């Protein structure tokens, strides 16, 4: 920011030994000004108003209040969709994580010297990552019809993009010494990768996959909203019928499931590292 320094001259400080040092003017006012401007524009466009929150905020708790006490009798109808949700996230995460491996290798600058391949694969990964999961699920329902298949595909796509990016960043930070030694001894690229790089990245890779799985269980519950199977399906139905006590029950079961899966994956991840 050469221009900024020209407008706001750096402060000159004369040290005790006569040396002059320059302290550049702080950028904070400029950043604050920009943030303030962005906030004002956003408030205008979104119609944000604190008074509405304070005067009508209690309305937020109306539906929440109707969820309690939850409808315990409904619990029998939840297990099926819940298992569907878990299956969708397991399979989707698995497929996505496995598919991500070759792409991540092709996107690692320390393994692939070809700039064009690197660029193409990386741009592809970024573009896939920008597709919102919900949109992927919607498109999938048009291709595979309503059902869990669409949800599985959407989760696989999301996992693929996320794990792919994390994995190539992992591969790029490994210690290349062993790999180069293997290559110098005449091993092929695949052999060298499997023996020198795979052991270095495997624990972190598995940990990323598990982390993704945790999030996917939560995502899978939303996907049902667009007809992609699982808990979201009955959630949407019950919201439509305004049976909020059943909605409360579904949410409690989902909460318990997420809690268990997170505890499990947290335990395994701790073991891995």
């Amino acid at each position: 920011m050469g221009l900024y320094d020209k407008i706001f001259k750096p402060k000159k400080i004369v040290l005790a030994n006569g040396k002059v040092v320059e302290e550049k003017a702080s950028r904070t006012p400029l950043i604050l000004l920009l943030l303030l401007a962005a906030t004002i524009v956003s408030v205008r466009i979104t119609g944000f108003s604190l008074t509405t929150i304070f005067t009508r905020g209690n309305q937020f708790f109306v539906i929440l209040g109707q969820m309690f006490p939850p409808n315990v009798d409904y619990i029998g109808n939840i297990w099926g969709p819940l298992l569907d949700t878990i299956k969708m996230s397991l399979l989707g995460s698995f497929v996505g994580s496995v598919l991500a491996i070759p792409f991540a290798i092709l996107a690692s600058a320390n393994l692939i010297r070809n700039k064009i391949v690197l660029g193409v694969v990386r741009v592809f990964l970024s573009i896939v990552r920008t597709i919102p999961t919900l949109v992927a699920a919607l498109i999938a329902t048009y291709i595979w019809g309503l059902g869990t298949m669409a949800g599985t595909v959407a989760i696989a796509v999301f996992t693929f993009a996320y794990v792919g990016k994390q994995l190539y960043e992992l591969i790029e930070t490994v210690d290349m010494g062993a790999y180069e030694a293997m290559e110098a001894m005449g091993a092929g690229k695949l052999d060298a990768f499997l023996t020198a790089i795979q052991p270095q990245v495997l624990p972190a890779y598995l940990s990323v996959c598990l982390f993704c799985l945790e999030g996917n269980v939560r995502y899978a519950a939303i996907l049902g909203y667009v007809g992609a199977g699982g808990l979201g399906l009955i959630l949407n139905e019950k919201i439509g019928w305004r049976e909020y006590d059943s909605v409360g029950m579904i949410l409690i079961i989902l909460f318990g499931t997420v809690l268990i899966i997170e505890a499990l994956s947290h335990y395994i991840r701790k073991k891995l590292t």
Partner: protein
Amino acid sequence: MKNEIDKMYEQEPKTWYAKLLAALIVAVLMAWSMSAVQTGSTGGDGLAVAGRIVSGIFHPDTELLFNFTTSGVAYLLLETMCIAFLGTIVGAILSVPLSFLSAVNLVPKPVALVFRTFIMAIRTIPAFVYGLMFIRVTGPGPFAGLLTMSLCSIGMVSKMFIESIEDLDTKILESLDAAGCTMFQKIRYGILSQLFPDFMSTIIYRFDMNLRDATVLGLVGAGGIGAPLIFAMSAYKWNQVGAILAGLIVLILIIEVFSGKIRTKLARG
């Protein structure tokens, strides 16, 4: 020499049975999950639909894409950005007290546990349920979307905040103490300067994610680009879908590049 290598080999921990067990568990889980792969009836050939989607995405509706009125892609993207921006800020503000109260190095463990469970409960409720609740408060529109985004951000943002609070280096506070600093100075130079870059980095990252997740809001009429996108999809207007997706993807890519640059700058100081 040869013997030494053999010895080292023998010392290698024998973990093949653990690996086999893990592989077996994964295989069983996958086989079990396969039963979930059921396709419904599409009311047409899936491949043909896929072809139309792809061709729509590559031939976006340019009229919609370069329309600068309130129904054009540009305005919708601006609205989405505003929702994500304010939503992230409000969410971050709400997360600060929550994360201080759940950091185990500041409060007793039971208290931290209670607040952590509370944060998890906030995270579990899906975005569209929040959307419905907030529409009761504000009526449909971007304001409801903003509030939804802010609640959805709390989970991940406070998780990251907690991590940075727990990583605080308390030695700095001790040395400030030794230098005779007041409480205010200790907070200003000892705590804020440690937390600020981490917090900013988290907030910027979350802004990225919120921009991506903003399409969910369209489902319940909470503003942003989601609603037109979903309407266009259910009306099979793939050219419009292509236009909206193209705009969204370009915006997200640009924001990602910028936020990545700012975040690496923050990390390096």
